[in-house]
């Protein structure tokens, strides 16, 4: 069992500026741990990318699964506080992370075309109005406000996945029922020939959260 990354360096004041790990984060960690053997022995990643790293908890955990220094772990976040805390979380847990302050993957494509072996995205998935999304009063609202169906940011990311994933690449995505996960799976299959499964799901209060896993249909899955 891999311990949850130590987050003692993050103060309650920090959490006014960055999304505090919650049930969704921990579901993500559990899904990665469930796939740990697969990631280590079959994917054997060289470059990993997390979109919207927040505290950096997920990429730090991935680094623990893979072993520090065995893969390049790139983290992006639109929130500069998050980018700064991401680095500190890695450092405090002896995992080297590359933190980039950017929107989704701006500045990384086309350079990293078909280069990402493990792609992780815990998106802003909460159903809100579009206005909430674009007139976000605080930077932290961007971490969870997802607009209509909670899908507005997710739908910006989906068309980028195919370009990012390497031949053996896998994409982990957290969704809730309101995000219409079956529709997302259909889009990825029909438009980009990406296969998928629900790797793990859990009820958090009234919220049904799940981790979807996507891979190329050319990749033979164990």
């Amino acid at each position, binding site marked *: 069992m891999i311990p949850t990354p130590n987050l003692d360096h993050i103060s309650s004041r920090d959490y006014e500026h960055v999304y505090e790990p919650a049930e969704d984060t921990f579901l993500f960690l559990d899904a990665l741990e469930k796939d740990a053997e697969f990631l280590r022995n079959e994917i054997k990643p060289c470059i990993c990318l997390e979109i919207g790293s927040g505290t950096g908890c997920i990429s730090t955990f991935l680094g623990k699964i893979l072993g520090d220094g065995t893969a390049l772990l790139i983290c992006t976040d639109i929130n*500069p506080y998050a980018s700064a805390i991401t680095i500190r979380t890695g450092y405090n847990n002896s995992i080297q992370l590359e933190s980039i302050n950017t929107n989704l993957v701006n500045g990384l494509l086309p350079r*990293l075309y078909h280069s990402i072996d493990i792609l992780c995205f815990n998106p802003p998935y909460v159903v809100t109005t579009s206005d909430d999304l674009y007139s976000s009063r605080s930077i932290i609202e961007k971490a969870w406000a997802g607009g209509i169906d909670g899908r507005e940011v997710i739908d910006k990311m989906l068309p980028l996945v195919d370009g990012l994933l390497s031949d053996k690449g896998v994409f982990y995505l957290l969704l809730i029922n309101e995000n219409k996960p079956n529709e997302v799976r259909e889009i990825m299959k029909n438009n980009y020939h990406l296969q998928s499964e629900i790797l793990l799901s859990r009820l958090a209060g009234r919220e049904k959260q799940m981790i979807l896993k996507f891979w190329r249909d050319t990749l033979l899955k164990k």
Partner: protein
Amino acid sequence: MRLVAHNMLQCHVKGCNSNNFPLQLSNVEIEIQETDFNPMFLRNILPKLEWNALVKTALQINITTLPNVLPDTSTDDLDDEFLKMLHRVLLETHIQQGKMICPNCNHVYAIKDGIPNMLLNENET
């Protein structure tokens, strides 16, 4: 930001699609942070690097140890001496502060406390 990450960044200002890589380093503060040597990772990442860009960038910060031409990675005879030198340049050389300038459109991206800021204003995207 280590040089390995710098090697993956390019300008993304709207309409700036050519000669926008590598971003030129300017006024940088460099810090060396030692880390474990992992020859396997270096061998894996080597084919994913833009070698010419790495050499060019290294020269901008007075690192002259990289050969102009990448040794043949298809053969396995990359010696430890080469890999250790690469380890130092790629994984232990951190750019803590400074600027990255697009060679095409001259857009300036800041690096602060080791984090590159690739965000653009709305009218630039």
